[in-house]
């Protein structure tokens, strides 16, 4: 029997934080590697499109500052997945910048293997024309021209490029966009752990202590793997895993609780068993990988859709609340007329989101009866430039404030604004223009590690 592999998932997302105590306790035993996932598409396409992170650099800095020195001094590889959140080049550079700052401040010097996930536009065009792209998760099919103006197209690579990066002997591996599970499955699969177990453990580990109770994406999880089982346990003694809490993790972020898909294939959990291990751990057995018949990678890219401005206000007057449809219609006419000299109606979008009435579930539910005492109104404009969006919201705000409606008694203004200024420029708006699977057979798609030295000689 091969020796067990033991690793630490630092937290559910780099920057979400973790208890210092968790890291200290985990380091009391041997660790083969420390991994942390940095990425998610959950916050929407803005972050990929804009090149910015959805957690702030100070958060990432804090999480890395505690782990970097102990990992380097003990020779424990540190693997960072989907650096910077969306894992395109600017996101990776942001994380490398933080590592350089920390190296300078802490007097550290180390070798880092960087694996970029960015896709060459020529290759993408070829993939589209060869019919290699198919929509993922309800995305619409790509039309000819659908790749034009796409920002930061990336591939979510799997375990192989991370294994190649680890083989360079680098002390830190910084990945561009990659599969969350690949961060934690690469090492165990390289060292003989069956892929089904390694990937199932990794899928749980990538969320940190989210599988524990109390659940915490902002804390660490220890994973031990052997040839026929793995065990998860939070190092923080205030948390514990139960068979139910660990099994329930497979309800999260996947359509089918009995299986999930990775580039390596389908991970089948129908025969998996979950048993308590000690006071706070859970041992899992029986998960298998059904290898993919056709190798695929998931691609992501952001299409620019304009710039946004918003204003937020409240309504209390029941006559005004009852007349919101009429107020909105009047405002639309007034705005269209005011901008007609410089912006056509089809070139912008204006939304009236009525919190308390129907902003969240829309026409899936009947309007509340009786109507609520107060309604929150968010007016949202998306237009080709920030200046145009700001102008639209300014016009919509002043029109809505003074819009007449049938039965109006109070004329001081229809809206209670909580802020001055009342309007906010919200920046660029994107859409996942590329959210597709790429059939990779026969394509030259190597995500080669680049080895760099971070920190200067003592």
């Amino acid at each position, binding site marked *: 029997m091969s020796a067990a592999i033991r690793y630490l998932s630092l937290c559910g997302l780099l920057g979400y934080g973790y208890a210092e105590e968790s890291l200290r306790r985990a380091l009391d035993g041997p660790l083969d590697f420390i991994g942390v996932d940095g990425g998610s598409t959950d916050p*929407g396409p803005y972050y990929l499109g804009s090149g910015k992170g959805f957690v702030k650099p100070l958060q990432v800095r804090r999480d890395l500052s505690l782990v970097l020195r102990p990992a380097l001094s003990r020779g424990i590889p540190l693997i960072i997945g989907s650096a910077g959140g969306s894992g395109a080049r600017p996101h990776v550079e942001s994380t490398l910048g933080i590592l350089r700052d920390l190296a300078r401040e802490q007097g550290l010097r180390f070798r880092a293997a960087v694996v970029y996930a960015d896709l060459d536009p020529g290759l993408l065009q070829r993939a589209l024309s060869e019919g290699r792209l198919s929509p993922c998760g309800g995305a619409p099919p790509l039309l000819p021209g659908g790749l034009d103006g796409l920002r930061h197209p990336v591939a979510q690579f799997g375990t192989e490029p991370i294994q190649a990066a680890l083989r360079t002997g680098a002390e830190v591996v910084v990945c561009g966009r990659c599969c969350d599970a690949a961060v934690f499955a690469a090492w165990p699969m390289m060292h003989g752990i069956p892929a089904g177990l390694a990937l199932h453990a990794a899928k749980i580990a990538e969320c940190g202590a989210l599988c524990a109770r109390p659940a915490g994406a902002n804390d660490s999880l220890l994973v031990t793997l052997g040839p026929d089982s793995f065990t998860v346990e939070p190092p923080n003694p205030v948390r514990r895993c139960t068979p139910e809490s660990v099994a329930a993790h497979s309800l999260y972020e996947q359509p089918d609780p009995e299986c999930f898909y990775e580039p390596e294939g389908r991970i089948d959990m129908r025969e998996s068993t979950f048993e308590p291990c000690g006071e706070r751990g859970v041992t899992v057995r029986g998960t298998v990988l059904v290898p993919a018949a056709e190798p695929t990678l998931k691609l992501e890219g952001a299409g620019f859709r304009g710039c946004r401005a918003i204003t937020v206000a409240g309504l209390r007057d029941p006559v005004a609340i009852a007349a919101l449809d009429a107020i909105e219609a009047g405002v639309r006419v007034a705005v269209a007329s005011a901008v007609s000299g410089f912006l056509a109606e089809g070139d912008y979008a204006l939304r009236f989101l009525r919190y308390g009435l129907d902003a969240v579930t829309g026409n899936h539910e009947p309007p509340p009866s009786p109507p609520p005492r107060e309604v929150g109104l968010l007016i949202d404009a998306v237009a080709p430039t920030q200046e145009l969006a700001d102008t639209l919201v300014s016009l919509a705000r002043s029109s809505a404030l003074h819009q007449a409606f049938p039965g109006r008694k109070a004329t001081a203004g229809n809206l209670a604004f909580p802020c001055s200024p009342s309007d906010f420029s919200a920046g660029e*708006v994107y859409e996942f223009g590329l959210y597709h699977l790429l059939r990779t057979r026969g394509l030259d798609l190597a995500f080669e590690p680049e080895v760099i030295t971070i920190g200067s000689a003592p």
Partner: protein
Amino acid sequence: MFADAAAYERVLHSPRFTVEALAAAYHADPGAVAIKPFARLRTIKVVLPRPASSGSPADCDVYGSQQHFPLGAWEI
């Protein structure tokens, strides 16, 4: 998670709880709606398509976090 196996079975096999009924309530294509029983945890996962792509100009729930209603108010 349902409190007991009887409640789980009652909902899962209720003639009111069907792909067609979910599709009608959410104005969705029935082909894109799925009911996934998870007997291990006496839980049922419902898969619904997004009316608008996450974070796109027309989206109103980026994480899709609050779309368990109207389903959550159904009486079985």
